[in-house]
């Protein structure tokens, strides 16, 4: 088990390889479909994302800014929908990690190599285990997108992920896709 602590550094990211199980401690910013589309459309991010990690997640949050927020559930959402946009966010904002589920495609994989970033796979559906790792909700941006689509600034402790795409061209998803297609031929 490896550890990745805040503030995140490029050299730590470059050390990570496909198959590594990692516990993250520090800040995460949620961002999913609407956030990526808005960034792609040219609207500037309301937060500085340099050396930060984006989490593809639409949490269940109750409460408000006055009373404070409580995260009731916070697992990853399917990442492939951000495939058209993710590499741009890596290029324009200098993010070092993307957490999601299901993996991403060749554009993102190239982005990881070009800009020094990793794709980290959280366990899909494990919303309670992952919500327990959230120690505080520090801020929220772009609430007009609706609660699941807003940017939530979270502090996490030992948040468990598996590296499935690294900054050196490695992708577990490409590998499993190819091997399972090959294997299927035997049974048709």
């Amino acid at each position, binding site marked *: 088990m490896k550890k990745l602590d805040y503030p995140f550094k490029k050299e730590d990211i470059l050390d990570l390889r496909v*198959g590594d*199980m990692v516990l993250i401690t520090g800040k995460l910013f949620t961002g999913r479909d*609407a956030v990526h589309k808005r960034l792609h459309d040219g609207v500037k991010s309301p937060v500085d994302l340099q050396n930060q990690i984006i989490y593809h*997640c*639409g*949490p*269940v949050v*109750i409460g408000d800014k006055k009373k404070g927020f409580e995260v*009731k*559930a*916070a*697992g990853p*959402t*399917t990442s*492939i929908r951000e495939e058209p946009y993710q590499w741009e966010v890596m290029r324009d904002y200098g993010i070092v990690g993307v957490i999601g*589920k*299901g*993996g991403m495609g060749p554009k993102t994989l190239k982005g990881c190599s070009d800009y020094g970033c990793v794709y980290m*796979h959280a*366990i*899909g*559906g*494990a*919303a*309670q*285990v992952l*919500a*327990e790792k959230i120690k505080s909700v520090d801020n929220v941006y772009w609430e007009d*997108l*609706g*609660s*699941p*689509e807003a940017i939530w600034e979270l502090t996490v402790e030992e948040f*468990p992920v*598996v590296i*499935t795409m690294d900054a050196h061209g490695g992708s*577990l*998803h490409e*590998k*499993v*896709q190819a*091997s*399972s*297609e090959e*294997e*299927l031929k035997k*049974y*048709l």
Partner: protein
Amino acid sequence: MVKKKAKAKKVVAKKAVKKTTKKTTKKVAAKKVVAKKATKKVAKKVAKKVAKKVAKKVAKKAAPKKAPAKKIAVKKTLAKKGGDQLFDSLLELIRKTSAEIPGDIQKVILEALHREEKNTTAEYAMNIIKANIELAKKKSQPLCQDTGTILFYVSHPVGFNQTEFTKTVHKAVRKATEVGFLRQNSVDSLTGKNDSMNVGPGHPDIHFHEHKKNSVEIKLMLKGGGCENVGAQYSLPNQALGAGRDLDGVRKAILDCIVKAQGKGCGPGVLGVCIGGDRGAGYVQSKEQLLRKLDDENSVADLKKLEKDIVETANKLGIGPMGFGGKTTLLGCKIGTLNRLPASFFVSVSYMCWAYRRQGVSLKGDNSIAKWLY
């Protein structure tokens, strides 16, 4: 006899006509009087019934004018209580569905965990899944943050009031969203606005079905978007897959869907499949297959064989939990059929994630929960 009856009918009809003409000729004030009389009549009847059952003493002591009013009040509260009871039962159904995995699913998940090799990412994923199931139940909070499409399947006796039931469902869904059993998950497809507390066109999705029993049975499925997105519909023959219009073609289509889904649907998952139907009915039926218990064996021998074969073959492909690679890709497969047109042959596949949120209740006469169905 026939003539007599006919005569009698005529007399009744005449009287009725007289009554109506009288009524219509009278002014509004007169109508009010009639209304009052009617209320009194109903009230008296109610009073008699309630007096027998609920409050003998009160009825005897009370003055005749006051008694009816009191009885109506009692009945109203009873009716309101019935509505509240349905609301309570629905809210509890939503809570339990969102937070607790049904026993038949938990069993196969634990079996899958033990199958995976130690110290692999697959085993790691299954262990987190196991911990998540325990934690969600303990905290009574959603297993998965995507509380999904809210699908109700309601079986009810003849004469059931679907309109009133739907109203109470909407109320319960709003409340469940407010307290966090459900995420705000309903987006206006044109404006992108998400402020409907899960009530809007198509949400929640309620399927009514009349049955011969006297009881009301409500099944609920919360189906997340990740797994819904990897569902697929095939029109056979499909040249690219070499899939013809037979069970072997169906098999090829289903296996193609599994390989295309990889880990994106939060595997290991369960497939609901429909062979036949039109495009719409095929998908609806494929989801209804997911209402079957996992240990339920198909009564059609060919389908039973195909269900088993799909699971075994899928688990040889090495896709594994979350698509990390591993031994369990699929936990189950349920296949049903609908008739088709000679021109069409659809295979519709719905993928359900491991966070298989499906529960059901049968209700007592007073709308409280009689028993859980899963």
